[in-house]
């Protein structure tokens, strides 16, 4: 028989042959289709995990850049302003502002406030000659024991002129009299735009290009159009409002030198992601139906240190435990009993015995229920951006980072591929092997100060397992994702000055 003929017999007979399909196959397909619809895009695969990581880095980086640019804007508030207080009420106060380094001088001269300094770059010098003109005899700026900040604004298209944060502290100049009428300072920048300020007893008038004049109370200064002016004035406003707290020169280098200790704990909702690594989906379905995640928890301790600006690094050690209920019902015992019923019939010709033999099969089911525990010792490495204000009771922060699974151990049970029950205990079984897993974590927290050193905080968080932390000898891998809310206390270690 030729090979081709031999092959054709198989081909002809089997090509259109129909085999029985399991009755539940359509249900399984429909269920699988539903499962594959992504509920949340970041759960679907590792690539999305990377997107989450990038997002966290962008948020952290963005927060830093924002803060940094805030400092830059603050930097453009001249540190080197010179103020001359003039007691001569009839004179004009001239504030001449240069883009200079820390070479401020305070001169008292007759009605003139002159700022002098060494210009680091003459090309970048801004020729500004704001004037404060006194319309009334007593409208002068004088020194007094209380403090108040006076700020000159640097207006420049080149930010590199000033590098230091520049709110200048002087003894409080007070505006004497009810009005400082028609006092204005004109700032001409190198782009030929003109901005002028007018002070009017608690109000500051901002004019831009001398066309629009807005009068706003100090509390509304944040609404001024020009961002730089807005921030400068907001700082000024803040300085007026908070006589006991001042930003200092060199604010950019401000750093919280304290170490903090956080102790926290959290209930956790865990969900498991199982990936086949050669095993059949039928087995995984049976395993999945036998296992249900329960509430887990974690607790830990970590140290926190300011690394730059408002960004803090947190690291420590934590214990987490994922709980899972394993329950399965299996046929345990078959008992077959033979039942013989003998009937004796009395007949005239003698007794007749009729035997009726039947069998009775009894099936016993064994219901097994245990709680599986997956325990981990982990190292969190987290960057946190804190919006902390010294005087605020309530503060908030955004955090993101990685949690490295340093050591894991399990106990409990699962099913093997023949649906038998096997132990998953780390000691005495090699059903599961633990791998070093890495998770991404993102959190937002709200904290409340109790005292200068103590604070409490709450921190909702989401944790995404980036890699599989458990590998099974039955051909699958699994990892865990978590959703939780931490409660904790923070202790300031030591009590160093912030500046």
């Amino acid at each position, binding site marked *: *028989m030729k090979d081709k003929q*031999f092959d054709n*017999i198989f*081909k002809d*007979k089997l090509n259109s042959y129909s085999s029985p*399909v399991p009755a539940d196959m359509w249900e399984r397909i429909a269920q699988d289709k539903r499962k594959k619809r992504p509920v949340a895009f970041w759960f679907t695969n590792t690539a999305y995990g990377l997107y989450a990581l990038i997002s966290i880095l962008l948020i952290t980086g963005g927060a830093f850049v924002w803060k940094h640019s805030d400092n830059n804007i603050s930097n453009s508030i001249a540190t080197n302003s010179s103020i001359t207080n003039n007691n001569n009420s009839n004179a004009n106060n001239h504030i001449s502002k240069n883009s200079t380094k820390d070479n401020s001088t305070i001169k008292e001269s007759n009605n003139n406030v002159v700022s002098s300094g060494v210009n680091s770059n003459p090309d970048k010098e801004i020729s500004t000659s704001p004037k404060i003109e006194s319309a009334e005899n007593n409208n002068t700026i004088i020194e007094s024991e209380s403090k108040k900040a006076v700020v000159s604004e640097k207006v420049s298209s080149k930010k590199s002129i000033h590098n230091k944060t520049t709110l200048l502290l002087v003894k409080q100049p007070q505006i004497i009299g009810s009005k400082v009428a028609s006092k204005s300072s004109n700032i001409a920048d190198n782009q030929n735009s003109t901005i002028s300020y007018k002070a009017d007893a608690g109000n500051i008038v901002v004019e831009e290009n001398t066309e629009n004049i807005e009068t706003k109370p100090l509390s509304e200064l944040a609404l001024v159009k020009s961002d730089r002016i807005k921030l400068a004035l907001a700082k000024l406003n803040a300085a007026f409002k908070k006589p006991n707290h001042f930003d200092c020169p060199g604010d950019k280098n401000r750093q919280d030198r304290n170490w903090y200790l956080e102790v926290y704990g959290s209930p956790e909702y865990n969900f498991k992601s199982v990936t086949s690594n050669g095993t*059949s989906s039928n087995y995984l379905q049976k395993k999945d139906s036998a296992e249900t995640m329960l509430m887990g928890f974690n607790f830990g301790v970590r140290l926190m240190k300011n690394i730059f600006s408002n960004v803090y690094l947190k690291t420590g050690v934590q214990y987490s435990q994922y709980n899972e209920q394993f329950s399965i019902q299996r046929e345990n015992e078959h008992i077959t009993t033979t039942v013989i019923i003998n009937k004796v019939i009395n007949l005239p010709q003698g007794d007749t015995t009729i035997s009726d033999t039947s069998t009775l099969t009894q099936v016993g089911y064994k219901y097994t229920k245990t709680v599986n525990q997956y325990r981990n010792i982990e190292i969190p490495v987290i960057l946190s951006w804190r919006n902390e204000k010294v005087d605020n009771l309530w503060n908030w922060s955004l955090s993101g980072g990685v949690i490295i699974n340093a050591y894991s151990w399990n106990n409990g049970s699962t099913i093997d591929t023949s649906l038998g029950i096997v132990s998953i205990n780390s000691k005495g079984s090699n059903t599961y092997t633990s791998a070093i897993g890495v998770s991404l974590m993102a959190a937002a927290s709200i904290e409340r100060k109790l005292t200068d050193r103590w604070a409490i905080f709450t921190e909702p968080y989401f944790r995404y397992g980036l890699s599989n932390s458990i590998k099974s000898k039955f051909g699958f891998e699994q990892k865990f994702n978590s959703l939780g809310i931490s409660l904790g206390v923070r202790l300031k270690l030591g009590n160093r000055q912030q500046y």
Partner: protein
Amino acid sequence: MKLSISNNSPHDSFSEREIITGCLKGNVKYQKILFEKYSPKFMTVCLRYATDQMQAEDMLQDGFIRIFNHLDQFKFEGSFEGWMRRIVVNVSLKALKKNRITFSTDDDAGVQIPDTSTDAPSHLSEAELLRLIKHLPTGYRIIFNLHAIEGFSHDEIGEMLNIKASTSRSQLVKARKMLQQQIINLQKIAV
């Protein structure tokens, strides 16, 4: 072309295009019709490739999900059944590749295969032929299925499985010999 649905569903007949369009719109009714129409045939395909029943069911399940997911790629050119069958075969191969496929290099050339009668396999039922194939080692089984039944050339098989065409040829020869031996054994039992 009309497809008659012979189950007890209220749908009497639908054109192939109608079913495909319905499936493309995500209409579950049409998806089920498609499934019911073709799943028995494709179950045979999967059984030919799979090591056991459970694996065949997985293959069929994955195959239909892939069909539904990629239905928009069918261009209404050529046989729709052939297009779906190719997907099922690919899914089956992919499932088998998860476990390394070994192509037996046992030299069984010395085994004497007596001549069988010309129509020996034709006397066997489809179920018996299927059982014979399932008893082949994985490597033999795949090559025999791909070449003898699916009709792929050895070059194509080599490309699909990343093996040499000559390996495919030798595996096919060995698969045929093993099948013939099994048929002889069956005949002996029958006698």
